[in-house]
């Protein structure tokens, strides 16, 4: 047992830092640090930069063009990207669909789709949830009926993140209703330009627009777009969820939020003294910092276990719960640190030529909206309640 970084890992960290220093534009970093939405162009730009360096697929197996980093190296990369304020790598294609295609897709599908998600040809989004099927995903009702060489899809998907930028969607659809719900689901790839698809924005409580509803009316999809076997889609979906390990704890992002909050606590003044000297605030901050230090090690322990062949267990669910709540707690404490300034909702301070009041420190101009927006992280990706069900189901074995 030894938590100290090897010299090789230290050198690797330096390499990542230098890369980020050289390649990441300051204006993008500034917006990411302020938790503002990242534009389509900025995301595509950053994907291209990473792709050029070969790091866009940093968590892919070497056989599919990955870089072969250890879990520790992957963690270092994520941590430094977060610290630098790099846009996150869009997970839908590269971290969610890709592993499914690698494990269950045909060789043709792999050759067709994997390169396109790397070179920016495709922007993928996810078609899992439905209005009546949130936590109870297996109850989904969108149907795909086979007609010779096409499936005809009818139904509705929702919570489709950044669907407004996407040209492709992977969906879970019902191909058999005469069986228990999980057994009749298939996994299919759909071109969003197909006639019969309508994408409508959902405005979220913070005023933002990052999720969508997708309506399917007699949408014809070639059978070649079915991944794996018909009616086996539930297995692929579970595989995807259980293997969504890297970064699930969001340690890098929380680490960046800790650093930002520590800086803030030195400049915000309460009663004439830095907020950092306020004992209740200091205690809150220390609790979060300790929780993060613990999570860093928990995360690496779990990743190490996976890399040594440990099967998907309750650990992924634990990381999801701890990581999401910790990230929310950082946003919560940051909001508290702002005092009355937290009331201000002034993302316009980032607009060129803005000359109105700057109520909160500039990188906090969107903080309260971000706090409300981040309530999502304990809901999406399988709500934390679902994760607790999974943990006890596995550990109690009932």
């Amino acid at each position, binding site marked *: 047992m030894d938590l100290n970084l090897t010299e090789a890992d230290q050198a690797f960290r330096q390499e990542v830092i230098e890369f980020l220093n050289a390649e990441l534009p300051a204006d993008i970093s500034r917006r990411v640090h302020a938790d503002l939405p990242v534009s389509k162009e900025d995301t595509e730009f950053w994907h291209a930069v990473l792709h050029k360096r070969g790091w866009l697929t940093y968590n892919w197996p070497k056989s599919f063009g990955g870089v072969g980093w250890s879990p520790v190296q992957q963690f270092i990369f994520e941590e430094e990207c977060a610290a630098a304020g790099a846009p996150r790598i869009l997970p839908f294609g590269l971290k969610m669909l890709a592993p499914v295609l690698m494990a269950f897709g045909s060789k043709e599908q792999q050759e067709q789709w994997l390169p396109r998600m790397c070179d920016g040809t495709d922007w993928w989004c996810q078609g899992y949830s439905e209005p009546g099927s949130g936590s109870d995903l297996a109850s989904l009702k969108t149907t795909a009926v086979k007609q010779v060489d096409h499936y005809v899809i009818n139904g509705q998907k929702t919570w489709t993140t950044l669907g407004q930028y996407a040209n492709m969607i992977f969906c879970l659809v019902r191909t058999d209703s005469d069986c228990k719900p999980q057994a009749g689901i298939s996994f299919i790839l759909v071109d969003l330009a197909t006639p019969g698809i309508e994408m409508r924005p959902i405005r979220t409580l913070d005023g933002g627009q990052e999720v969508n509803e997708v309506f399917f009316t007699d949408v014809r999809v070639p059978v070649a777009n079915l991944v794996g076997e018909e009616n086996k889609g539930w297995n692929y979906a579970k595989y995807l969820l259980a293997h969504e390990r890297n970064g699930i704890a969001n340690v890098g992002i929380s680490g960046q939020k800790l650093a930002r909050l520590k800086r803030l606590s030195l400049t915000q003044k309460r009663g004439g003294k830095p907020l950092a000297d306020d004992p209740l605030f200091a205690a809150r901050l220390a609790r979060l910092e300790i929780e993060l230090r613990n999570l860093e090690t928990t995360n690496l322990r779990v990743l190490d276990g996976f890399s040594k062949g440990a099967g998907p267990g309750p650990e992924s669910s634990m990381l999801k719960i701890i990581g999401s709540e910790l990230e929310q707690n950082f946003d919560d404490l940051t909001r508290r640190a702002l005092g009355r300034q937290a009331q201000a*909702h002034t993302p316009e301070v980032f607009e060129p030529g803005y000359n109105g009041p700057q109520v909160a420190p500039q990188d906090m101009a969107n903080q309260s909206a971000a706090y409300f927006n981040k*309530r999502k992280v304990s809901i999406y990706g399988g709500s934390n309640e679902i994760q607790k069900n999974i943990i006890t189901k596995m550990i109690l074995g009932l």
Partner: protein
Amino acid sequence: MDFQPTEERRMLADMIGKFIQNDYPLNARLAAGTSALGYCPEAYSTMAQLGLIGALFDEEVGGFGGSGFDIATVFTELGKGLVLEPLNDTALATGYILAQTDQLKLVEQIILGQKRVALGLIENGADYDWGAPETLARQSGAEWHVSGVKTCVKFAHGADAIIVSAQTPSAPGISLFLIEASTAGLAEHPFQTVDGGNACEITLHNTPAQLLGVEGAAYPLIDAAAARATLALCAEALGLMERIKDMTIDYMRTRKQFGSVLGKFQALQHRVAQMLLEIEQAKSAVINAANDLQAPSDERNRAISAAKYSIGRIGCAVAEEAIQLHGGIGMTWEYDLGHFAKRLVMIDHEWGDQDDHLMRFAQS
């Protein structure tokens, strides 16, 4: 002891409830919240005509209420409707200050909804402390001139006047000054608030002003006004929580997952039960604060801090928990809950947050 509301207050509450139900749709509220003014002047005027502002003041100064329980009754009902219109800082708090400093004509206009007076106490928006303003007022002859910057002044845009706190060279304490909105040397910079509505940064540069009350003696006056405004906030939060409770119970009874309504899932049941009992405790905290509003200031402030702490802690927990219990739908703009939750959390950012009031209570 008596735990029943009076007949008058029951009628007042019913009347506000009916107004909200019939004439205060949430859509209009949301639209008004992002308008330039940040609220709907017609709705404000109607509320004044219905006597909602009058209920916040003593008969002696032209109202027909003014006790802690009157204030709590009005604001609890306003909270239930997520009412945006600025009856707190710019009517209740400033009206109280004006009444105590014999500006009865202006108080009458406030009660009738004809004028609004904003309250500028805060200079450092990171802090909740209003006790040591750096804004400076100087006297030359009979005239006072004020210079300084006030921030996070709620609903100052469109107000007819503003009361600001300042230090003066000639007296050690805080003084209060009344400044007409159109006065030369006053500049306002409005900004939006995340819960709907707006606030201003106000810069004063040698701005002519009228001293309110006795120079240097405003601390206890501001303290009493703050107690009223804080009580009103707590009551508003209680009203918000009552509605959030109803929405959550309704959702638990109707939303199905895994073949049952959510309310059948024991893990959620127990969290709902916890939420409900916390709201009962919050309600008791508001009653205690309303009861002690007339008490000596030490006792009053302890009850106010106990209530604001309770509301801050429980309010944030209820807001977050209700969203979590709703899942995705709770995150949407279209569904009412999120707007109630935003206001509920932002109440923790006015007049001192939970930690601030906890330590005030501990040190009192």
